[in-house]
């Protein structure tokens, strides 16, 4: 059984990677392989939903990669798998060109969702969470030839990544607080760390679920192909934001402030984005705003503790919104437009598509007995128990959802106008046909949209509540009846007033894109520019300026040449002159003295020779003189 759990994640990941790597060569087999893999995933998910395995693998020291299927995952996992399969079947008939890359990315996405849904630790959660974001980027920018689509993918990725920083923060807080990274251990963290972790998880979930203030990215994400919007941006990826809050509801409850914050964030999003949806002229933009609004209900449910109601709403919404997005995709492919004014009467051209879309719109409006009626009331019951203002806001949001759903319903079911062709083929050339592969998933999803309300009603609802441990209040019969009446009234009003309802503000999604541009993007880019200039002009030049030490070396070299070296050579020359002077003095002085001494001695010698005359009588005289001198000396010396 644990092997099956690994297989659910590993098989689509491996097949998806293979398809992406093979690229164009696998284009022919890709749709079949993709659908087959998705069917396998669906079968396995039903098996593990029954078996409820839990497992882990070593990943980081002290932080295993934990996966496990509990009651919550057991209902959500087959839902996501089923929607994936249906979307892949639809896109087999819809997506042309680079089918292998498309199918591969969708399968990779499916693997990431499986990991996210079954994650039992922050590590595995973050793993699946980020890969979902990356595949979402690649799928939104699927038609890369149009740069603005890739840019939209970038906006979506960066917005969700900003929110994902919260999960990194939560992981750090969990470690700082001494608990492991297991999601179940988070409520047990000591006080300051628990708040940090909760804040991180909350921000990440709100970002992924496109709640305010992060809703802008969902508008940009509509640049992706229709099936991508149906899977990622209605049923799977954005829903994971709500799913995370449903899973960590004990953590939200343990900190006193997180539940009300989440509840109000969800309620306000539902209200404001419901208003945004009514004002849209583009069908996909309307559905996107509606997705954010409906997920607001799920977040509201998590905030007030209505986990069963929130889960049921998530599942029912997945079926409903996927249906509507696929229908929008079918009309875009067939008629070449997704502008609401041009889609007047489109439901009548292909009745099956029209009926399914109609069921989806009615379910979205909350018409009894379709799915979103009961599930919404299950959430609102929990809100009413918490606070009356919250309940009223929720009720107003429900009314708005009936409004925009009604807008779609009445529009596509009007009589075909005579000049319908004028509005077609504005965005791409339409094929004027809807294939079987495109219609079958619509039927299945319509059935789901109709029937899944049972998840919130007894007896199935009771089983779900017990399995999820939800002991909150259930909606009373009066509430159920009241919301049904409200929905019908608003629906009727929408039919009456649609022709007079122009697409004015807040058609721009509350100016979120502009606000983000002004508050975040432009300052960051400006800071980057300034720092780069500082780095080039100041830092780099300062370092290069230390090269001015070379100039000092030049000064030293000149000093060395002109002063020191010349000093040495000058010393050499003067010592030479000294030597010459010494030589001359030597010649002039001592030498002369010695020579004169020698000359004197020679004269003395010559003088001494003169006594040798050779005459005897002179010798006698010399002897007598010397004798007399000697006697005189002797007498004087005594």
């Amino acid at each position: 059984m644990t092997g099956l759990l690994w297989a659910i994640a590993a098989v689509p990941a491996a097949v998806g990677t293979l398809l992406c790597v093979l690229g164009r060569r696998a284009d022919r087999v890709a749709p079949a392989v993709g659908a087959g893999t998705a069917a396998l995933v669906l079968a396995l998910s039903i098996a593990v939903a029954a078996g409820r395995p839990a497992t882990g693998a070593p990943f980081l020291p002290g932080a295993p990669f934990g996966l496990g299927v509990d009651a919550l995952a057991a209902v959500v996992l087959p839902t996501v798998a089923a929607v994936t399969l249906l979307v892949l079947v639809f896109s087999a008939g819809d997506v042309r060109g680079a089918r292998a890359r498309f199918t591969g990315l969708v399968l990779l996405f499916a693997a990431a969702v499986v990991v996210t849904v079954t994650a039992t630790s922050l590590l595995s959660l973050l793993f699946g969470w980020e890969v979902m974001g990356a595949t979402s980027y690649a799928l939104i920018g699927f038609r890369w030839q149009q740069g603005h689509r890739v840019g939209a993918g970038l906006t979506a990725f960066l917005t969700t990544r900003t929110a994902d920083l919260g999960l990194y923060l939560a992981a750090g807080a969990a470690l700082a607080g001494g608990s492991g990274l297991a999601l179940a251990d988070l409520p047990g963290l000591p006080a300051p760390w628990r708040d940090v972790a909760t804040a991180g998880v909350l921000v990440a979930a709100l970002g992924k679920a496109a709640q305010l203030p992060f809703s802008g990215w969902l508008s940009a994400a509509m640049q992706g192909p229709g099936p991508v919007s149906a899977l990622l941006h209605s049923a799977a990826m954005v829903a994971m934001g709500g799913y995370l809050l449903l899973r960590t509801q004990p953590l939200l409850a343990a900190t006193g402030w997180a539940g009300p914050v989440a509840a109000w964030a969800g309620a306000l999003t539902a209200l404001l984005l419901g208003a945004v949806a009514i004002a849209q002229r583009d069908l996909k933009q309307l559905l996107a705003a509606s997705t954010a609004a409906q997920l607001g209900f799920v977040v509201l449910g998590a905030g007030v503790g209505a986990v069963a109601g929130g889960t049921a709403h998530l599942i029912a919404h997945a079926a409903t919104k996927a249906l509507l997005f696929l229908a929008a995709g079918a009309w875009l492919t067939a008629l070449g437009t997704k502008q609401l004014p041009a889609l007047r009467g489109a439901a009548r051209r292909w009745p099956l598509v029209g009926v399914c879309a109609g069921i989806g719109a009615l379910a979205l409006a909350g018409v009894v007995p379709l799915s979103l009626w009961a599930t919404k009331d299950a959430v609102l019951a929990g809100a009413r128990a918490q606070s009356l203002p919250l309940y009223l806001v929720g009720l107003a949001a429900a009314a708005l959802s009936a409004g925009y759903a009604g807008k779609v319903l009445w529009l596509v079911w009007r009589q075909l106008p005579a000049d319908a062709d004028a509005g077609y083929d504005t965005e791409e050339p339409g094929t004027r046909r809807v294939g079987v592969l495109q219609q079958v998933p619509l039927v299945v999803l319509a059935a789901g949209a109709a029937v899944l309300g049972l998840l919130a009603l007894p007896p199935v609802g009771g089983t779900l509540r017990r399995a999820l441990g939800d002991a909150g209040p259930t909606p009373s019969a009066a509430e159920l009846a009241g919301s049904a009446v409200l929905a019908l009234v608003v629906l009727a009003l929408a039919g009456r007033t649609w022709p007079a309802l122009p697409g004015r503000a807040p058609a721009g999604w509350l100016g979120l894109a502009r606000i983000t541009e002004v508050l975040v993007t432009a300052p960051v880019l400006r800071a980057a520019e300034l720092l780069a200039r500082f780095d080039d002009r100041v830092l780099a030049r300062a370092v290069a300026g230390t090269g001015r030490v070379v100039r000092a070396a030049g000064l030293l070299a000149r000093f060395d040449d002109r002063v020191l070296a010349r000093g040495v050579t000058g010393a050499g020359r003067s010592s030479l002159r000294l030597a010459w002077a010494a030589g001359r003095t030597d010649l002039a002085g001592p030498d002369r003295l010695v020579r004169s001494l020698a000359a004197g001695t020679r004269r003395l010698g010559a003088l001494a020779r003169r006594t040798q005359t050779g005459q005897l009588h002179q010798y006698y005289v010399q002897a007598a003189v010397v004798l007399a001198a000697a006697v005189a000396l002797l007498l004087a010396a005594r």
Partner: protein
Amino acid sequence: MLSSTVFLPLLAAALLAVLPVPDRVARIGWVGVTVADLALVVALVARYRTPAGGGLAFEERVRWIPSVGSSYHVGVDGLSLPLVALTAVVFCACSVYGWREDRRPRQLAALFLALQTTCLGLFVAQDLIVFFLFFDLSIVGMYAAIAGWGHGRDAGRSALQFFLYTFLGSLALLLGFIGLYLAADPHTFDLPELVAAAPLAGHPVAGGFVLAALLVGLAVKTPTIPFHTWLPPAHTDASAIGSAVLAAVLLKMGTYGFVRIAMPALPDAWRAFSWVVVAVGIASVLYGALVALAQTDLKRMIAYTSINHMGYVVLAVGAAGLSGSGTAARELAVTGAVTQMVSHGLVTGALFLLAGVLHDRTGSYAMRDFGGLAGTAPRWSGLFAVAAFASLGIPAFSGFVAEFQIFAGSIGATAWAALALPGILLTAALLLRALQQLVAGSAGPRSVGFGDVRAAEWLPVAGLLVLSLAVGVLPWLLLDLIAPASSAVVELVSR
């Protein structure tokens, strides 16, 4: 066996330098020797068992300069073995990529093989003089690679700046080593002995000065801000394989020095100054990412992301020195730091090799002149997209494993580390913006006639990215090596 792994490339380099073999033989020899060396390293990893008591495996010690207490002492443990493996892998990838180099291939092969020995030798060195020797020789080798095989008018100038700046840093490092030597009693340059003795333990002032010298030297090499200005020009003007080796291997020498020398040998000083290190790390993360965001030249942009990624490592090793927090978080931080070293080496090496293809085809790295490469060069675009996502830290690649550990560990040690979180957001923005400019939209002027990657180009890139994927999906293969060593380091720094 360790020494033969280290010196085999040098032997081949000497042969290639001396014997006038034809170019083809030189290329084959280059690839063959790097593959053989890689096989030796794989054998080392397979036979590696965590040594008991924080010791070393495959230890070798030979008398060398006994009068200064320096011996040829080499050995590996959990910190150095992954980097040895990274070095072998990156040089092997570069030898395959260098198959297409036409300018003096024999001399290039000899140079890179010699450079490989210096890099391997540094990571296995267990003696400070041996460490310093290989540190400086690697600077010389890299200078030759940039000056001799770089491109652009300023290649010589960038190479000279690189050489002088990092050489000056290495002198500061030498000053620190001498400080450690003099403080030890008996005087020795042997690293395990110095670590065991912690000679400056009771001397805060002297320890502070020695640590400052070490930090300056290593900070220039890492590089952290404000010592990073040599990196962008060096990368812009180097050839593809020169940049790959510079980013993947040489930058790791700085951060490796932190965990190998500075932290274990100077625990008191490290703990006292860990806040400075943390601050420098956070500043490098944010500064590097912001300046990279403003770049229009692809190689310069990747160079600044290196500053950002190394900033995470510096943050983590700084946080590991913060006393007053549990050891689990700090060990995770150090493990994350070493993992980031390996991951950055693999991924940024791949990015630089891919950037080299741009220059090879068109002579330019200016991103706005391209566009629509997904049509003209789909395989290049696919590889670049994967490398960009791996670099920004998407799970299933090694970057996520590293960054998650770094953040979980650092934030677990100090809440201030959360200031570095915007770094991963900015990196995502800049890399995906570059991807969009290069790959999406209509074909720009330089994209027309852009030949797709050839075997010699995509094989090494794919190999590096597959290894990153392996570490990302099966991280325990790497972390089982690193974790015991990182707990030993944390223990040493906490005493």
